[in-house]
């Protein structure tokens, strides 16, 4: 039992390399997570769906804050997880919500399942330039940019 507890604590504290991926991108082309990682900068991988209101809130907040201050060293990649039932809404939702971040498509949750077994939204993961997970966010958190900056400062 003691071992199990230690194992759980240790593994939750350990910095984990992120599952890397290639994926199709909305509008054509492919996206490689590895190619988007940049030394000295953080990359936020944000999972969302068209029916998830808090996800929209998170993406709008990120666009507003990161768009206003280009000195914040964080790039955003979004991964849409709509299944075939709602997948035809992705482009119109991105247009309406003015989501200008790259949108990788994951209709079968092959990427999402690797990052978040429970598949709960919103879910975002901050990576450093080496692809190590610095922080994960379950649910929209209004102060997530500040939290990300703090995590990057510690990491760098």
């Amino acid at each position, binding site marked *: 039992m*003691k*071992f199990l507890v*230690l*194992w*759980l604590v*240790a*593994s*939750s504290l*350990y910095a*984990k*390399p*992120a*599952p*890397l*991926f*290639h*994926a199709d991108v*909305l*509008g*054509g082309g*492919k996206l*490689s*997570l*590895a190619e988007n990682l940049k030394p000295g900068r953080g990359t936020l991988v944000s999972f969302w769906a068209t029916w998830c*209101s*808090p996800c*929209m*809130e998170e993406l*709008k907040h990120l666009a507003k804050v990161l768009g206003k201050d280009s000195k914040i060293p964080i790039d955003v990649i979004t991964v849409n997880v709509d*299944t*075939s*039932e*709602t*997948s*035809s*809404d992705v*482009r*119109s*939702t991105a*247009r*309406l*919500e*003015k989501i200008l971040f790259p949108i990788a498509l994951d209709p*079968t949750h*092959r*990427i999402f*399942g*690797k990052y978040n*077994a*429970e598949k*709960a939204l919103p879910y975002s993961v901050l990576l450093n330039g080496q692809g190590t997970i610095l922080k*994960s*966010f*379950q*649910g929209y*958190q209004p*102060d997530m940019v500040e939290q990300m900056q703090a995590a990057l400062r510690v990491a760098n």
Partner: protein
Amino acid sequence: MKTKALLLVGLFVVSQSFAESDSSSALELIPHEGGFKFSASDHMMASSATEGDQSDISVLKILNETEVGAEWGEYVASLGWTNRYASQGAVEPSRALQIEKKSLHGEWKDWVFRLGDTHVEFGKGIALSLYRDQNFGVDTTLEGGYLRYHPSGWDTQVFAGRLNGWDNPVAIFNLENPVASNEVVMAGASSKIALSDTSQLGGHYLFAMRRPLLDTRYERRWNTMGLSFNQEGLFDTLDFYAETNLMLEDRLGDPNFYFPEAYGSYASFTWSSSPWKVKLEGKDYRNYRFDFRRPPTLEEDIVVSLNTENVSATRLMTERRFDGTVESVAASYLLGEDRAERASTALHHIVLSTKGVGLLDSHWEAKVGYRRLIELSDLAHVAFKLKVPTSKKQAVEMGYRKQLSRANLSQPELRQDRNMMDVGYTFSSQLSASLGYEFIPTANEANQNFVNLSATLKMDALSTRALIGQTSGGTLCSAGVCRQVPPFSGAYLELSYSL
């Protein structure tokens, strides 16, 4: 000293396992240096609840699902198994070990191959969808070979094998394994070419046969052909998707018997220009009796519809969003014909919904609707949700839902009134708890009140959920699929962990 050593071993294994996780079964593997890597995940559920007709006997069940994976270069192998312990009185007996899924796959820039278990889907899932849904304990896979070639502008897949269900689902409400008493073999191919940067034309073909496990001969055969077309961003405001399928079903060994031809079509047309969105959808499913599919339902708020075999409908949805916050108002109207209930029954369903941000930065959502199957049944529903932040990362959440339904309009006294409410508190992004209450004053059963208490704890790799009390059952929907589930009375603990 021993504990420290174990901790170090644990850290080493954890680090190795996470380093492995850059392999994802449907993804192209990013080139990396070779080396053997390992991963593992576990999903366990323990429940003590009444089961089946023996409503006074509580059954203890411990269900476990483990998956281990290993990667070497571009190749990934995985193996999944389940364990089941059930005390006396359980409908399903104990099973010490059941191998559920096994696969080996390799992925390169334009190529993917898989041997063993894999999920496959055509288009919108009208003709074929093999998927996993943990809520219903469904995980049907193709056990065989799969090959995909997808250079730029072209995407082709071919596959063949037999279907493999989930024998020991780790779920409270699990559906029956669709291949528990039959063997189903299938082969198929699909291809999609890009006509331009924003449009694709696709086609697919599926062949399937079924054999009762106790029989040596196949008794049923299906041939399905389909076409799809997708156009996105026309004039930067219009998106269009259309798909149509023809399925031919034969009873083998009986040349004089013919099933009617089955058709399954879907189309959507979306116009969106901030802040407005208008979407027109249509579906037409005729005689489409095939278990391995997940077609679009068009239902705004799925509450009663289980029919995806013989139904046609069109839905118009209009939405206006408000910039700056997550606020919107929307209305949808569904007009259809349900051919499952009677010879032909007109279906109307109107839903109005709105969401916004109010006092104290609270977020609210409201939805009201009315659904009527002419001369047969009707249902009125209303729902309201409210989330009020109380401090940083903490919030109180409340929800209420009411459904008034009449299953037979000629007997209006047989009305059902369902009231569901819950109050929850989010203590942090890791911990939340909720109290649920359901009141069904029109229920014939002795129990009209259902109370439950649940809590959720999430850490990076660990997720736990516990529930104690009762739920009333009824229609449960997950990822566009709805099923009737029985009441639950007891307790369960669910734990997921991945390395």
